């Protein structure tokens, strides 16, 4: 079915919940205040008016039109395929001990949570080999930002604020470049050589006394491990820069190799991803930053400390700290899930995770590259770690079906893949990462669907190009999304632009004469 917009449901006077009403004494206290408010709302907001069962039905139907990882063989989100998130871990989050506690209630009444977070910090410290950990960042990119913020503070404290460059690589996640830029740095991006990673020479040429940090993903987003990584670290350290390891996706190397052995100063993990917390349509997630002892004073504040009597407390007296990056303790729910997940596996289990994920990936690599028209650029002949960025360039050349088109058609099989971050370094990319969570039969099913679509591209390209055929909607257009005259990101905007309703006149900022408008970069689309 094509579920209506919520604004088309319900009728005046319907409602889904009733808030508690004030008791007479409370109403007596509040009524004069309410009456005399300077900015009391007179025109009710045009929210929908719907009964509870209709609200529920609407959202249940929308959920059924959403392809959660629980519902498919969700291995097509390379760089960040979600592994299975055990349902039991959600129950801990829903328990009142987690869901119904306030972050600022007396610490004596929060000992369970503080101990859990403290234990998880120690686990992550061991997994990274580094000294101290914060779990405050709200997601992976927020953790990268926290890292670069610590870099900035570190250099500032040492009087080296002239260091204004951050070096990263083309296959590192875009947030490395973007957060560093946000933090005020110039970005130098090293592009990959034939094996996907930059050469040592390229790094040497980029490093200088203006280098604040190297921020690098390894294995690269194409699944290749840079064997010179220790050399990279050495070179940057010699130049006085810090080395920041993006281990958002450490799925393929858990228990195999660690930031500490390589010599990094800082690393981060995505708890959604490496430690199995669910992706939730795009968050909430959680990030962990691990740092060396030297950098520990710069971690976000406060820090959980264990007193001699075994009780946990918060240390707010952190003069070098970058301060808060997120309210309170971070995304508690995901800290609880990640702690439970690691606890259920232990050291041996984590290593099995890595080994299985890598085995699955190399199995897929073989099977997928057997499909005519699909290749795996870079690092020819090498095994890959946890993922591969495939190219459908040959298929596209032959059939006119792009990777984007291919992906839309794959959706008709209840499957999904993601192409790649922009700009595409691999032509017609498809980034696939199996993780440890799928069986051989499931991987085979996925490959079989890809093979079918590749076949269709050759025999009946129109079928592929006109997909989706079994989705909830038909193919939609991108054009209206790029033009300020036609885009409508809310129903209110739609009413104003399409239904002829006049927006109200309200006071607003007028650009001073001559203020330059932003030059729009070339347009881009998501798939």
């Amino acid at each position: 079915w094509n579920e209506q917009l919520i604004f088309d449901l319900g009728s005046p006077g319907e409602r889904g919940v009733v808030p508690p009403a004030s008791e007479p004494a409370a109403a007596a206290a509040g009524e004069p205040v309410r009456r005399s408010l300077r900015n009391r709302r007179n025109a009710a907001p045009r929210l929908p008016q719907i009964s509870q069962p209709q609200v529920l039905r609407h959202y249940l139907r929308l959920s059924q039109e959403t392809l959660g990882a629980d519902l498919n063989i969700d291995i097509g989100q390379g760089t960040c395929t979600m592994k299975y998130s055990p349902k039991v871990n959600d129950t801990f989050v829903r328990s009142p001990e987690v869901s119904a506690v306030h972050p600022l209630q007396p610490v004596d009444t929060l000992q369970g949570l503080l101990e859990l977070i403290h234990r998880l910090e120690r686990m992550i410290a061991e997994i990274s080999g580094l000294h101290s950990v914060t779990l405050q960042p709200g997601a992976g990119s927020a953790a990268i930002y926290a890292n670069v913020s610590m870099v900035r503070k570190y250099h500032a404290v040492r009087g080296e604020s002239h260091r204004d460059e951050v070096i990263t690589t083309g296959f590192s996640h875009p947030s490395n470049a973007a957060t560093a830029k946000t933090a005020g740095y110039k970005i130098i991006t090293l592009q990959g050589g034939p094996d996907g990673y930059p050469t040592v020479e390229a790094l040497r040429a980029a490093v200088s006394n203006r280098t604040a940090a190297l921020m690098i993903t390894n294995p690269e987003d194409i699944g290749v491990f840079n064997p010179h990584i220790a050399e990279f670290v050495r070179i940057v350290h010699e130049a006085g820069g810090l080395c920041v390891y993006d281990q958002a996706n450490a799925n393929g190397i858990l228990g195999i190799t660690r930031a500490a052995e390589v010599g990094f100063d800082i690393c981060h993990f995505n708890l959604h991803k490496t430690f199995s917390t669910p992706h939730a349509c795009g968050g909430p997630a959680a990030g962990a930053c691990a740092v060396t002892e030297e950098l520990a004073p710069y971690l976000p504040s406060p820090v959980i400390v264990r007193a001699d009597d075994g009780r946990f407390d918060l240390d707010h007296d952190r003069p070098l700290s970058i301060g808060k990056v997120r309210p309170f303790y971070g995304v508690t729910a995901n800290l609880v899930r990640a702690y439970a997940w690691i606890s259920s596996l232990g050291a041996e289990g984590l290593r099995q995770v890595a080994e299985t994920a890598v085995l699955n990936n190399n199995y897929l690599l073989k099977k997928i590259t057997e499909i005519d028209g699909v290749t795996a650029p870079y690092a020819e002949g090498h095994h890959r770690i946890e993922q591969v960025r495939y190219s459908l360039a040959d298929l596209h050349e032959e059939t006119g079906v792009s990777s984007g088109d291919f992906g839309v058609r794959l959706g008709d099989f209840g499957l999904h893949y993601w192409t790649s971050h922009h700009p595409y370094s691999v032509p017609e990319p498809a980034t696939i990462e199996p993780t440890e969570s799928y069986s051989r039969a499931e991987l085979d099913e996925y490959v079989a669907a890809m093979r079918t679509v590749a076949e269709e591209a050759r025999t009946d390209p129109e079928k592929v190009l006109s997909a989706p055929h079994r989705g909830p909607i038909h193919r939609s257009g991108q054009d209206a999304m790029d033009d300020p005259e036609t885009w409508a990101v809310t129903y209110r905007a739609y009413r104003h632009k399409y239904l002829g309703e006049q927006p109200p006149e309200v006071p607003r900022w007028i650009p001073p004469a001559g203020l330059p408008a932003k030059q729009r970069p070339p347009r881009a689309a998501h798939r």
Partner: protein
Amino acid sequence: MLAELGVNSVDEFFADIPEALRLTRPLDLPAPLTSEAELVRHMESLLSANVTTRQALNFCGAGCYQHHVPVVCSEVNGRAEFLTAYAGETYEDHGKFQALFEYASMMAELLEMDVVTIPTYDGFQAAATALRMATRITHRSGLVVVGPVGQDKLSKVYDYVAPVATVEHLSADPVVPVPLAEIARHVGEDTAAVYVELPDAHGCVDADLGALAALAHNVGALLVVGVDPIALGVLDPPSAAGADIVCGDIQSLGLGMQAGGAHGGFLAVHDDPRFVLELPSRLFGLTPTGKPGEIGFRDVAYERTSLAARENGNEWVGTAAALWGITAGVYLALHGPQGMAELGDTIIDRTHYAMQTLAGTGLVEVPGIDRPHFREFVVDLAPSGRTAADFLKAMAQRRIFAGVDISAESGSQQVLLCTTEVHNQRDIDTLVAAVKEVLA
């Protein structure tokens, strides 16, 4: 599978990792709890050391608010489909796109602004981004923050705007707002934005947004307002008074407390490309499909984002708080206009009932008692001669979390209390009775 690949051991896959970088021992982690039953026992035992707000009466707020979470909100955000969806595109995840479009649309109605983003991490990030956007839009670097703002949020904002702006904070005690004339002295040709909150960090809702907007606009600066949307059933949307960017946290809208882990940030602007093109977050727009009457959803002006343009995008975007957006949408749909209005009324009523009955004990002072408050207010322990720490400890022994200690910030022995629709009159009377016991 190894045989299929012609490989003898999984180790071969790791050939590219130099031996020197390998970990040669098992990780030092606790023994695994392999069975689900054992894991459950362990977690229950660990977490049972917490005292929950079902066991104790909680009056702490300060950025994390104990509002009732309608169960339909939990039902929807607990659906396996939504909870585990990754980054499916418009067709595979049509439902997700629609739910987020509807969230943005309902927020737009509440805020009376045509553009609302997919949620960012939290209200801290939303405020920080709003102020950086102001510097980009105005090409200026001065930021003026007016009135009480939480220390933690300020900490985040200061760190975040440091590369591009300087901040002046005109703070205020709970008794009187910052005088307009004083604000005017700090606002000038270099000012990118004036930032003010509603309710502010002391719970006051009497900021004169119209006057602040005029002041800012007069010199070419923006007015940025931080607001808790749960108050907008009773309060006029800031846009009506002239706010150019409105930001805040959606934690109040059905997300629950989760020990402070359940936050999402929103940013709202008018539908003006100068503003829209500076937003870093994703925006989902409504678009027709090939079939008449059918609609789909797609990314709007995707080139703005770091996903499309790396460091050339606005700040950055990544996994943030989408599920909380869907949840807040459910919350608004359940309440509707009438529910939001009634909710606001109840909160104001109970807040003032608590302020008056506490002040009525004579054992504490309620500074600013004559100002309109929403949900939070400051209590000064000066008349009792007790410290805030002592007081809170004694109250906790009575299973009451009697607010947040703000004496470090305020320089006085003060606590910040929070009352919402979940605190009925009996709860407040229980609080007051305990205060009498403790302070008498």
